[in-house]
């Protein structure tokens, strides 16, 4: 397994210290890491899921719009940050691996490192009541 880029290592270290839920993906959208606060929203520990391709995590976590309709992967802030390389925000519902439905808001931004290397994206979550 190849080593992660240094900016991604630093992002993970930061995420491990933050009380905010954080989700990090590679340039192809593959899940690299989510921190402990994110585990309560996603319904599973990272040690249990491990890395996952985008096609897997974007459906496993079942994102829905506020009317309960399924969201396509490309409508998710993380995928927008990856595709357009710009920050993105959305309020939506997510059914975690524990089966519970939660309302969350997500801010995602692209990880662009030294010498303009595109390294993936990072999302910050917040769970809302109700």
């Amino acid at each position, binding site marked *: 397994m*190849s*080593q*992660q880029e*240094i*900016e991604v*290592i630093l992002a993970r270290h930061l995420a491990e210290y933050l009380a905010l839920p954080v989700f990090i993906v590679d340039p192809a959208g593959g899940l690299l890491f989510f921190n402990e606060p994110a585990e309560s929203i996603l319904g599973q520990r990272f040690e249990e899921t491990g890395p996952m391709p985008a096609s897997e995590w974007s459906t496993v976590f079942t994102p829905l719009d506020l009317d309960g309709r399924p969201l396509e992967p490309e409508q998710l802030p993380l995928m927008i940050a990856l595709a357009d390389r710009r920050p993105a925000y959305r309020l939506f519902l997510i059914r975690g691996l524990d089966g519970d439905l939660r309302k969350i808001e997500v801010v995602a931004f692209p990880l662009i490192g*030294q010498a303009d290397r595109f390294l993936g994206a990072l999302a910050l979550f917040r769970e809302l009541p109700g």
Partner: protein
Amino acid sequence: MKIRLWGTRGSLASPGPDTVRYGGNTSCVSVEGPEGTLLVLDAGTGIRCLGLELPADIRRVNILLTHLHMDHLQGLPFFAPLRRPGVEVHIWGPAGTTSDLGSRVKRYLSPPLFPVSVREISMNLNFHESSGDSFEIDEFAVETRLVLHPNPTIGYRISSGGRSMAYLPDHEPALGAPRFPPPREWTSGFELAEGADVLIHDSQYTDREYEDRIGFGHSSIAHAFQFAGLTGARRFVPFHHDPSHSDDKLDAIISEAVERYKPAFEMVPGKEGLRIEI
């Protein structure tokens, strides 16, 4: 591949009777290939003595900078080949976020930080930025990766004829890691050092000193030994010694670490003048 250490000290040159054996010059290492190509790793104060020993008819010099902190650059204007007409000087180093490598080096080599400008020293300077790619210099294959250290900093892996050496003189892979060492793929510098015949690595602090200097960009001797063990390097050279550490103190620090970790790899203390052939 012939490796020679011309400066092993970190942060600040520290000549004196207490640093005679490990040396007082700051980072500089030469690597000579089987076909005679010379690479110079960093331009700390040790580069001055290297310059005095190079043949007068040398036509090209390759200097590979890890970063631009003063202890890795201060010797550059005192490197004799720079002043010789007709000598082609190639300098590699990390890209910056707002200005290019050449501009940043020239900022140091200009008043008021230095009395003369770079044009007065050498007319034939060629700058090459590298922050995570691979390139060749004659018989050498060179790989670079950004590593954990304040400001853009790269490490090098240099290979030739099936042999390799890794050079990470300023490196804090333990920074922010909840556990050390973390898994390989989440360890800064791992790919550069993996299975290297020789690993020259930052070992600046004792464990106690490190507690007060987290984030300064350097490793404790314990972290350096653990990193070397993780990478599977065959020979480990502790390097970038703290300027406050005397020869006797370094002997004690290193021997205690060997006793504690009982490494499977060979450990060779990084002393000025050390020669290693691989």
